[in-house]
């Protein structure tokens, strides 16, 4: 940086490339693209809006989907359900983040003694990742309580959440594993050269780099999980979607679905922005390091 500045200060005396000329834009060049963007966006969305609202059944849709009164009436009910979603989501995230690493490490272990762990990890991931989440929720949520094993809770919500945790752990461990495998072999060699054990290598060299690599992918899974908590409705849990359905079934008014949609968006859109931000920050750091 400093040498560049020096070059621009004394262009005549030093050899080398000429400093870049500062670009000057005509008003046309400066404002035309922006104008085109705004106008075309307004035209396209305005046209779409007109097509939708001029539909014969639009007043019906408006009455049954965007009824402010019904939205207000259903909000307390749907929101109380949404708190269930949020609670399950946050608790599940913590457990999944830990379990996912454990399974991923199992799978990445080398050596004959680690074979049972590797086999376990492979079978676990194959089974749990290959089963539709809704089936896991039904099987655990209705099946495990029906076993009535003494000492185990028979809460459907608990076992349904367990099903989600197990399913998402399988996805998450594969994401971690991809991160682990993306760490260059040289890192392992370097750790070995320093005299670190396999465990120390993993703990101080491989995992920190692996996790950093996959944070955007993990956040992506977190958003997906947040929506999949709604699957717990099939085992009778009164979460947001189920509360919205109950309202709809009672009144034949679908506005409660819009309320639930907005609540989910309020939670997931910040997550998406966070993902973008983390990705961008990470990219910037890497670029600076290579410069």
């Amino acid at each position, binding site marked *: 940086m400093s040498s560049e500045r020096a070059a621009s200060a004394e262009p005549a005396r030093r050899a080398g490339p000429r400093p870049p000329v500062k670009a000057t834009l005509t008003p046309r060049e400066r404002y035309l693209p922006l104008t085109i963007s705004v106008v075309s966006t307004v035209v396209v969305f305005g046209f779409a809006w007109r097509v939708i609202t001029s539909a014969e059944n639009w007043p019906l849709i408006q009455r049954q989907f965007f009824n402010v009164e019904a939205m207000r009436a259903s909000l307390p009910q749907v929101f109380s359900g949404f708190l269930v979603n949020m609670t399950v989501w946050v608790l599940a995230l913590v457990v999944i983040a830990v379990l996912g690493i454990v399974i991923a490490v199992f799978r990445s272990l080398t050596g004959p003694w680690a074979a049972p762990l590797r086999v376990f990890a492979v079978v676990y991931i194959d089974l749990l990742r290959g089963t539709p989440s809704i089936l896991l929720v039904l099987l655990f949520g209705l099946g495990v*309580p029906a076993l009535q094993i003494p000492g185990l809770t028979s809460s459907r919500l608990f076992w349904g959440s367990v099903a989600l945790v197990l399913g998402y752990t399988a996805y998450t461990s594969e994401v971690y594993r991809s991160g682990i495998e993306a760490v260059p072999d040289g890192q392992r060699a370097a750790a070995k050269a320093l005299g670190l054990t396999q465990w120390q290598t993993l703990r101080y060299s491989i995992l920190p780099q692996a996790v950093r690599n996959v944070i955007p992918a993990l956040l992506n899974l977190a958003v997906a999980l947040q929506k999949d908590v709604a699957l717990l409705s099939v*085992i009778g849990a009164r979460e947001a979607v189920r509360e919205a*359905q109950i309202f709809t079934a009672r009144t034949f008014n679908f506005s409660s679905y819009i309320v639930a949609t907005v609540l989910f968006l309020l939670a997931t859109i910040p997550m998406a922005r966070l993902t973008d931000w983390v990705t961008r920050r990470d990219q910037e750091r890497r670029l600076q390091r290579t410069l």
Partner: protein
Amino acid sequence: MVRRNLRRSVAAAAALALITAACGDGDADAPEVDSTEETDDTGDDTAEEEEEDAATEEGDGDEQAGGIPGCSVDELALFEPGQLTVGTGDPVFPPWMLNDDPASGEGFENGLVYELAAELGFEDDDVVWVGQSFEEAIAPGTKPYDFSIQQISVTEEREEIVDFSMVYYQPDKALLALPDSPVVGATSLEELVDANWGATLGTTDLDYIESIIGASDVAVFDDQATTFQALLGGNIDATVISFPTALFATAVQIPEAEIVASLPADPNDSGHGLLFEDGNPLVDCVDQGLEAVIERGVVEELVDEYLIGDADVVEITG
């Protein structure tokens, strides 16, 4: 605690229908086929009038017995001209419709529809069935049928969105549970409050459990099968369903469960009605046809045939 014979309890509605039918005898003195002939002399003597249409084509015979003025098949604003298109659940369940086959006419609801269709002047072959989910039935927009029948309860809130016919049947509610459930032996609603309840989405059973019994944290399942599964698995202690459904369920689907008691009526639930798209002009004619069918005692006969069984149950009254 009162023990009563179920046959008597379910027959309450039937008795009511009998009385109405008896009162109606003065002006509706004959089955519909005869009545169309009677009406011939009230209208002009148009030569080529069909028997079925004769009663209605003039549209001025308010006192005509049987036939419905202004409601001939040609005049009705039907979804498909000449056909009565009827929506129902897919699949359909006994005892409301037997063998998952609405067109067989075997069952309470499809039996009623065929009687109603005949009353309106349709042949049996003119009745076309359309299967759909409950969600589809209540979704906005054009409905692909003239009306839908699937034990839909008429409530004020729902009437803001769709139109209903008159109520054709009001089933009792039954308390369903396994023999070892804590609700067994209960004699009042207060004893039921603390049970672990479950109900099926889209039914008025949930409202019943929450508002009449006063229970909270009721589990709500997607369909009846899941509710029964939850009951069998011990996930829930009890559920509330309509009495006819309970009779069938305990006889066929979940013989392990039993009808613990019959429950008092819900004042907010007026009973089952036919569902129409909002503003459908058919409602008036169908209502008149339905009224005539009920007056003839058809509903009572169908109730006798399909919806009652022999079971001694405890009656909880409050």
